[in-house]
């Protein structure tokens, strides 16, 4: 079972700059942070906001790492072996993308079974109030386009080495 990559996702999340952690939130601040700022004054709120947002980001990253392992595990049980994993992390909305050899990705068996796994994981995490969008790709990926859409973490699942 491929699971070593979860540590890499967590390592990646832990080393992100404040600007990378805060910018994808796009003005979104969880209710409890706003409530605390109101209660203790704006300065106190500001001082604590960055750390709280970072904590939320990290908590979310841990859940996304877990959900990545779960979907890969389900796919492996059907003998579908993803080659690369890409993650776009944010406090609110994270995305997981798995790539496969074209022969796998375009096979009837894959198209019949693999999307049910997305349905299962996304629904389970939504119940835990975690938004994750999972999708699949074949080969010949435009990595620049992925990066520009926020997929800043990538890993080769065969070698367990992060992609540039």
């Amino acid at each position, binding site marked *: 079972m491929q699971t070593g990559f979860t540590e890499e996702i967590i390592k990646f999340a832990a080393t992100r700059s404040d600007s990378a952690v805060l910018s994808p939130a796009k003005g979104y601040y969880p209710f409890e942070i706003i409530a605390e700022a109101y209660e203790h004054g704006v300065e106190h709120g500001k001082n604590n906001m960055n750390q709280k947002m970072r904590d939320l980001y990290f908590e979310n990253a841990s859940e996304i790492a877990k959900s990545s392992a779960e979907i890969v595990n389900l796919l492996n049980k059907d003998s579908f072996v993803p080659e690369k994993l890409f993650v776009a992390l944010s406090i*609110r*909305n994270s*995305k997981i*993308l798995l790539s496969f050899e*074209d022969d796998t*990705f*375009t*096979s009837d068996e894959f*198209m019949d079974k693999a*999307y*049910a796994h*997305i*349905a299962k994981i*996304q*629904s389970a995490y*939504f119940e835990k*109030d975690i*938004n994750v*969008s*999972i*999708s*699949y*790709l*074949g080969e*010949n*990926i*435009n990595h620049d*386009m*992925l990066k520009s*859409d926020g997929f800043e973490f990538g890993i080769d699942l065969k070698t367990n080495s992060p992609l540039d």
Partner: protein
Amino acid sequence: MKRLHGQHNEKVCNKLNLDPLICNDWIVTTAFYSAIHFLDHALFPCTLDGENFQNISEAHKSIRSNSKHQTRGILLSKLMDQHYQDYLFLQTNSQNARYVNYDVNEAISNRAVSNLNKIISSYNKEKKEIKK
């Protein structure tokens, strides 16, 4: 209106599918944008956890998800589960075409058309709405 918009997009999808130039990415995209109108027409109005929704915008305001497309997926998973997987196929492959430089494999576009046809045929069977 939703149904008519779905039919309009379906016509474009079928036309593209017959075109020898083959624009598989557009076949997938039009299949998805046809499917969402048929599904929305079938879904709304609906009630989820005691809340009434007249349309996808209302539902999206209440359901905290990544996008209206994901909100629709959540509603399908809870109210019309039989279409959730087909919808996910259409949604994800339509959105991901940009990551493969719009070079979408024919097997994917064929499956997209087949999923759209499944949704439409279920819709037609029930005449007015897909069985909820």
